[in-house]
């Protein structure tokens, strides 16, 4: 958290309402998101109890395990979940575009991808575990399950893992996205409560949000009081109808909150880089779909050493790119870097558009721009700079003194003797320059999996799910 966000939290506390910390929306929001609120049986790792889900706010589907200790009913529940989710996922596979690639075959990318919205991080973790507990099951053999169950398990595993990818919007938690755009007047810990965070953003803080009788928890954990007083007696009585209605009562308030959260996020204009990240999501989703279509085995229980290292490197790059893109897309995020002296903004007071360097054929246009700023500039002369106003350009800091910063444009000026119109900022224009740039070092040189050094366990055996995986007890 930055000082800017801390200040926003203080202000929220004083004014009794959450404060914006973003001016644009930094996540993709689907036209047809799948809202999914799962509930888990208390005391169990991944035993489902219920879920409310659907793509339309006026049409929630409720799935309930009416006897959570019955393993057959749990698999039947998972099959029901598959019957909802698999057609939704499949509906995005029809429309594709061909993407040409350098040094690789072209591939098909879906035009749009599914998006699963869950209330909180714990919901994401539960989806991942549910995927882990079902993807190895088999439709044949000693403990057969419907064939949609392992398929769903692979998709849930995929969505769960992709959710950890910075900037991905394929599956995302409402509290996380809201917290990226608004600062409440409570701690980050308390922000994990969807009802509490929503109250801060919409009407102001309310202790009701912590009262499970007014706002049941948004899952996957249920309220212990509800378990003891309602659920336990209904299960004991074997009253399926009572159980179903009780769980509906627990889920409906969160269902409404989820769609309100969607409205809130939709109210923000989309950030400029969101589409690019969604394109990556579409590519990733397409690759997963192709993987399954080719009959590849389910995801391994654990990554090998090389796979783990390359995943980590990928995530780090994605994280860095996500941070830079958000700053370029959103002046309020860029302000954090202005505060720490890694960026500055101000008015252009002087320009030398035809300034050039070199002689004869190697003569190049290097326009100079002087910016007057109130920001504390902590960048050394020579630092490479970028600017959100002209993303294709590169610049260099020449000098910073007394609130005046001289910048030299070094990239993206073309070969002409005079600058193209609009390529050099005019006097009076407001501009922002920053040392943050989106060009990162390529991926680290990692060996192929077959060349994994012995220090990292040697080459991994190719993963083939064993009978043991399929027979894993599921009590």
């Amino acid at each position, binding site marked *: 958290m930055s000082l800017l966000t801390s*200040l926003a939290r203080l202000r929220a506390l004083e004014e009794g309402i959450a404060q914006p910390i973003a001016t644009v929306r930094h996540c993709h929001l689907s036209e047809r998101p799948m809202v999914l609120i799962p509930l888990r049986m208390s*005391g169990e790792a*991944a035993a489902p109890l219920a879920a409310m889900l659907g793509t339309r706010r006026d049409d929630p589907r409720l799935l309930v395990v009416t006897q*959570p200790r019955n393993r057959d009913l749990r698999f039947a529940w998972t099959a029901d979940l598959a019957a909802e989710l698999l057609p939704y996922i499949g509906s995005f596979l029809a429309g594709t575009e061909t993407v040409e690639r350098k040094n690789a075959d072209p591939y098909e990318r879906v035009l749009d991808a599914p998006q699963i919205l869950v209330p909180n991080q714990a919901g994401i973790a539960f989806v991942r575990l549910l995927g882990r507990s079902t993807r190895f099951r088999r439709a044949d053999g000693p403990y057969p399950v419907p064939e949609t169950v392992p398929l769903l398990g692979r998709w849930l595993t995929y969505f769960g893992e992709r959710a950890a990818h910075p900037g991905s919007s394929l599956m995302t938690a409402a509290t996380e996205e809201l917290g990226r755009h608004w600062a409440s007047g409570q701690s980050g810990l308390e922000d994990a409560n969807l009802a509490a965070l929503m109250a801060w953003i919409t009407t102001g803080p309310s202790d009701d949000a912590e009262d499970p009788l007014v706002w049941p928890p948004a899952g996957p954990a249920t309220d*212990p009081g509800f378990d003891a007083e309602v659920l*336990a007696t209904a299960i004991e009585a074997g009253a399926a109808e009572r159980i179903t209605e009780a769980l509906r009562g627990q889920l409906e308030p969160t269902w409404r909150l989820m769609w309100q959260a969607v409205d809130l996020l939709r109210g923000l204009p989309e950030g400029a880089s969101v589409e690019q990240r969604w394109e990556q999501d579409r590519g990733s989703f397409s690759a997963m779909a192709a993987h399954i279509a080719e009959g590849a085995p389910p995801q391994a229980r*654990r990554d090998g050493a090389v796979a783990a290292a390359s995943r980590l490197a990928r995530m780090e790059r994605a994280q860095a790119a996500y941070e830079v893109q958000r700053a370029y897309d959103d002046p309020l995020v860029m302000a954090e870097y202005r*505060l720490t002296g890694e960026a500055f903004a101000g008015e252009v007071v002087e320009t030398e558009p035809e300034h050039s360097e070199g002689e004869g054929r190697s003569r190049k246009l290097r326009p100079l721009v002087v910016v007057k700023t109130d920001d504390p500039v902590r960048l050394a002369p020579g630092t490479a700079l970028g600017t959100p106003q002209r993303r294709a350009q590169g610049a260099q800091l020449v000098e910073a003194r007394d609130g005046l910063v001289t910048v030299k444009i070094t990239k993206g000026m073309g070969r002409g003797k005079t600058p193209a119109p609009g390529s050099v900022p005019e006097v009076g224009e407001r501009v922002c320059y920053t040392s943050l740039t989106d060009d990162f070092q390529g991926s680290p040189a990692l060996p192929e999996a077959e060349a994994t050094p012995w220090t990292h366990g040697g080459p991994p055996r190719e993963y083939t799910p064993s009978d043991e995986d399929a027979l894993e007890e599921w009590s």
Partner: protein
Amino acid sequence: MNRLDALRGTTPPKPHDARAIAALAANPGCARRALLDGAGIDKDATARHLGFPAPFGQSPFAITRGNAFEALVKADGCAELLRMLRELLELPVAEVAYHDVENVGAHLRHAHTRALFDRAARDEHDSGTIYDHPLLGLEIAGHVAYLEPDVVAFQLGGRFHIVEIKSFAVIDGQADPAAVAAAARQAAVYVLALRRMLRELGHDPLRVAHDVVLVCPENFANRPVATLVDVRRQLAVLERQLSRMTGLDRLVEGLPEELTFDLLPGEDGLPTRPAAELADALRRTTARYAPDCLSTCDLCFFCRDEARQEGACDLLGRQVRDELGGVASVEEALGLADGTRAPAEGQEEIARLLRNAERLRRECLA
């Protein structure tokens, strides 16, 4: 320690369990908590009487599941546990002697445990291997808290091992880190209590291993799996906190003579003390509220409410507090940001940053 008893007054003391003792180390800087725990005050009842009941509860399903898993681990003469100890710690096949300490009536269990462990530590030839539900004692600020580890295993290289049975799952070799951390803190309390018992009996306390055996269900089945967890760090924190509790005298000295947190229970055991009066008494002690308290302390809602009324930056969490570098109140921080308040000595830098942050926010949101 009479002053501490006076703080509790006529309310019966609340015995500490391992979880409560482990939580003592969670917020060592909180004087209010140290005093209440030191005096053996029932914080849960206090919070309820104040109108701020603690947000904790355990689902009956989780309790049933926990009990069933423990029963499974111990079934058939601890067959599963012996398998794991043989695999994990190379327990010799001959070592199977089992003592069900819970067979002994509750009032004698502690003495029985002492005698059993004394005999084991003396290396008498037929000392046991597995002790089921022994009862240990640990002195907390003058009161003995009785603690009941799931199992103590002996005869692993002549050392005692605490065995902690938990029903959270280990999936593909990984468990919820928060759950593991809590289990380690709790097990450290047992290690400490057993070490102190051995020392009192004249044995080397280090014969209690700092590696505890954590037994959890593996993946999605009920099958137990054991892991060794090193609790040295948790032990160090715990010992530091307990030694601080013995320094409660100093905290008590600063309090008004007549101060008490007595609930004045009536004949039915229900508190008769006016809640507002009790709240006033508690406010005479200094709390150190942090959002983490919401998961560890029964009084958290009361202290959070107090922090709200005071407009304390603590409400927003340690990160914000650190970011503000010592500016403790919301009003003060915002005053510095708005420029309506002159920075005190030492606040110049944070004031400059806050003013800048305020200017940037206004500019961007204009």
